[in-house]
């Protein structure tokens, strides 16, 4: 009958379309493949059915019956196989599949015989209805067993699951019932039981419910595919409608314009109109069909933009978590960030998860390593299938653990945040309150968001670190400054202690020296009675020795003062000539004693006055003359002073022993320049030249010596700046 034929075709075509959509959605997925095959079987059944109803002859009828039988022989086992994948019972029950397929093959092989279909004949209003053969009885059992068991498994699962999965199963069950029912209603007639196969009319509901349910289950997500198909359908319909109107109008004017021209115009107009009409429907579909997706998109794009504006880590994490939770209506969200040092995770922001739960997923390194390897978010729903496809036992076990954990803490999605392919953190999302699963598009959008978030969070973290670092640095600098200050204070104290020590030490040394010098001088002066003449010389020697000791103590004290920077310079305006003259007077006795000549070449025009410490410069000049006398056995000592540019140069020349090149280098070094210096000092030059140099340095002047060599005499120069 025609109506049954139409119903058959409708069933067949809907199954076919559904099967194609699902298969091409993911050609490599086993569940898609099986479903494809199953739909193919259903399609063969439906189309065969349609043609069978239209058959005009017995042969045709038989032929198409056999065709449709191929379809429905495989329907139970394929359906069962698919259910196993769907409910993840594959491993458990796959043993049943083998006998199942064997049975189907058995039926198939015997199909051409009359064991399945005895013959065809009119029944009720049907011209060619088959009569059941023996195999058909077995077929019924097989049909009921496999489909019944599938239904049982589905119902059982329905009771056990919650949320969105429950919904899917619900619709699958409804669709399946229609399908099974439709199939069952055919069978009575095979046995001449007069019941019309009215179930057929409802069979197309099966693919429809399937589609509805499947489209809500991300795995075979064909919602967008359906959407686009509908858009095309509507667009084409409108165009065709439009075209027909044009043709009708055109027919009116066919006299005026030729038909071919009319057709061409029609064609062009249709082609031109297609795109705008298509866009129009697409926009509507975006708005209403993908409504949730569309609104997510706007919110999450907004969020993306806001991410670039916020630098504070806390505010940023709050923003991300609250936006996600509110927009996608989630029951819980947590952001975990990894410490840069040891790679430990910590909870940055949490809504809804229990603290210990939020972090439990990353207790070990497995999840991190897995995410880094796969560079993709982990969806709870997918875990079963991922686990099934994994080969390594340890990996399987670890994944199972994660699955259990995610179920326990009610996490639905782990969204990794990558910085340069390394995990810098994770956003763990709970389920949508509505019970809907995450669609492909949701995940794609979340992925984009994750990328943006990871960069923003990284920036905020770095900003925090820099901020901390600079505070830290400031602290460190402050501490160091304090330390330096206290070290400085300590040094100052130490300094003071040193100079006090030196002063005290020299005081202790000086006291007895004062007594020696004092008493001896008084004895020599006759304060204690007349002195025997012979006593005079020895006593003078004693006095001389005492003076020498006193000088050494003075030198030591002066050097320590110079080294500690405590030497004072009392500058007054002074006349160099006066100082030199005074010195010459002082040295007269020593000169005469040694039979030398001292010539002071006083400058004709007076030298300008210089700001100097008279005492010290006097000491320097005395020291030079003293040395000259000491190291000259015969001859003369010439003293000169002259002004050159802005300095006054004083020279003390002698005809004495002179200095070797080695000695020239060391002569001002005193004992601070190691062994050579010490040797020089010990040999008698004393600290005088060392101190002399220091005094001259304190005046910003220069002191130096020239000598022709051993036995060739020497000239000492002192240069003092006038200003």
């Amino acid at each position: 009958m025609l109506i049954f034929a139409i119903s058959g075709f409708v069933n067949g075509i809907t199954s076919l379309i559904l099967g194609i959509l699902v298969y091409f959605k993911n050609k490599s997925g086993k569940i898609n493949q099986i479903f494809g095959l199953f739909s193919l079987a259903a399609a063969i059944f439906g189309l065969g059915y349609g043609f069978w109803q239209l058959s005009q002859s017995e042969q045709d009828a038989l032929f198409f019956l056999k065709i449709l039988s191929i379809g429905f022989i495989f329907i139970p086992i394929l359906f069962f196989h698919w259910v196993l994948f769907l409910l993840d019972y594959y491993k458990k029950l796959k043993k049943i599949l083998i006998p199942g397929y064997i049975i189907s093959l058995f039926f198939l092989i015997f199909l051409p015989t009359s064991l399945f279909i005895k013959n065809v004949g009119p029944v009720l209003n049907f011209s060619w209805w088959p009569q059941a053969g023996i195999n058909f009885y077995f077929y019924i059992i097989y049909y009921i067993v496999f489909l019944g068991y599938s239904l049982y498994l589905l119902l059982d699962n329905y009771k056990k699951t919650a949320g969105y999965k429950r919904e899917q199963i619900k619709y699958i069950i409804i669709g399946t019932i229609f399908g099974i029912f439709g199939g069952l209603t055919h069978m009575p007639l095979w046995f001449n039981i007069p019941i019309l196969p009215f179930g057929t009319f409802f069979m197309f509901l099966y693919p429809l419910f399937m589609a509805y349910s499947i489209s809500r289950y991300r795995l075979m997500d064909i919602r967008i595919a359906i959407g686009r198909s509908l858009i095309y359908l509507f667009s084409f319909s409108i165009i065709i409608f439009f075209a027909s109107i044009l043709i009708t109008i055109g027919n009116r004017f066919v006299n005026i314009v030729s038909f071919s021209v009319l057709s061409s115009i029609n064609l062009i107009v249709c082609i031109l109109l297609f795109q705008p009409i298509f866009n129009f429907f697409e926009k509507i579909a975006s708005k209403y069909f993908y409504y949730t997706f569309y609104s997510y998109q706007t919110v999450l794009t907004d969020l993306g933009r806001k991410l670039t504006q916020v630098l504070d880590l806390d505010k940023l994490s709050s923003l991300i978590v609250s936006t996600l939770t509110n927009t996608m209506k989630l029951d819980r969200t947590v952001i975990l960030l990894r410490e840069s040092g040891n790679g430990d995770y910590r909870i940055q922001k949490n809504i809804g998860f229990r603290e210990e739960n939020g972090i439990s997923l990353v207790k070990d390194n497995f999840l991190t390593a897995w995410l880094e390897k796969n560079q993709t978010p982990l969806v709870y729903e997918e875990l079963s299938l991922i686990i099934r496809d994994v080969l390594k036992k340890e990996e399987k076990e670890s994944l199972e653990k994660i699955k259990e954990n995610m179920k326990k803490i009610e996490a639905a999605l782990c969204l990794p945040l990558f910085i340069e392919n390394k995990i810098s953190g994770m956003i763990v999302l709970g389920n949508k309150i509505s019970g809907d699963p995450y669609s492909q598009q949701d995940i794609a959008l979340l992925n984009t968001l994750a990328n943006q978030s990871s960069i923003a969070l990284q920036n905020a973290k770095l900003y925090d670190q820099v901020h901390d670092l600079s505070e830290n640095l400031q602290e460190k600098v402050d501490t160091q400054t304090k330390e330096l200050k206290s070290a400085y204070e300590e040094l100052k104290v130490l300094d003071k202690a040193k100079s006090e020590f030196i002063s005290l030490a020299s005081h202790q040394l000086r006291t007895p020296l004062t007594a020696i010098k004092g008493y001896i001088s008084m004895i020599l002066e006759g304060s204690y009675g007349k002195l025997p003449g012979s006593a005079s010389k020895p006593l003078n020697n004693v006095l001389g020795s005492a003076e020498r000791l006193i000088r050494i103590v003075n030198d030591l004290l002066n050097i320590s003062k110079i080294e500690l920077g405590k030497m004072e310079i009392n500058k007054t305006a002074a006349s160099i000539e006066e100082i030199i003259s005074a010195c010459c007077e002082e040295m007269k006795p020593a000169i005469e004693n040694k039979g030398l000549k001292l010539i002071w070449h006083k400058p004709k025009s007076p030298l300008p006055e210089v700001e100097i410490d008279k005492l010290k410069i006097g000491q320097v000049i005395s020291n030079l003359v003293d040395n000259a006398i000491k190291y000259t056995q015969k001859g003369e000592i010439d003293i000169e002073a002259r002004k050159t540019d802005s300095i006054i140069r004083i020279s003390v020349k002698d005809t004495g022993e002179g200095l070797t090149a080695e000695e020239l280098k060391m002569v001002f070094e005193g004992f601070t320049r190691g062994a050579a210096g010490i040797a020089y000092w010990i040999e008698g030059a004393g600290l005088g030249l060392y101190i002399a140099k220091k005094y001259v340095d304190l005046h910003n002047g220069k002191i130096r010596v020239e000598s022709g060599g051993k036995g060739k005499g020497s000239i000492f120069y002192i240069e003092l700046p006038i200003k």
Partner: protein
Amino acid sequence: MYKILIVEDEKLLSEMYEDKFSQSGFSVVVANSAEEGLGLLKKEKPDLILLDILLPQENGIQFLKRMKDIAEVSKIPVVVFSNYDDPETKKKAFDMGARDYLIKTNFTPSEIVEKIKDFLNKINNPLP
């Protein structure tokens, strides 16, 4: 005849200077500590004080300070003479009004007596 007070704790030296100053025509009073010195000051009212710095218990600087508080004797000239050659102490002494800071070892007793004589003459017979 001038009277001088010598404040010096080293007996060895105080005797030496006492001898020299006496022989040079001075009337000499000797104190061996700052406390003793201050006591003698009021009684003796010398024309000049020769003050050592390193003294037991209180030192010369403290002597100078306390001297200032005693009106009758605060104007007596003080010449510090010590072997303690410390710039800070020197500065303090001058701040406290000492007229000079001599290093004992650098001078024979005769030289010191000469210096003091000159000094006292200048004070009492200032040139017009």
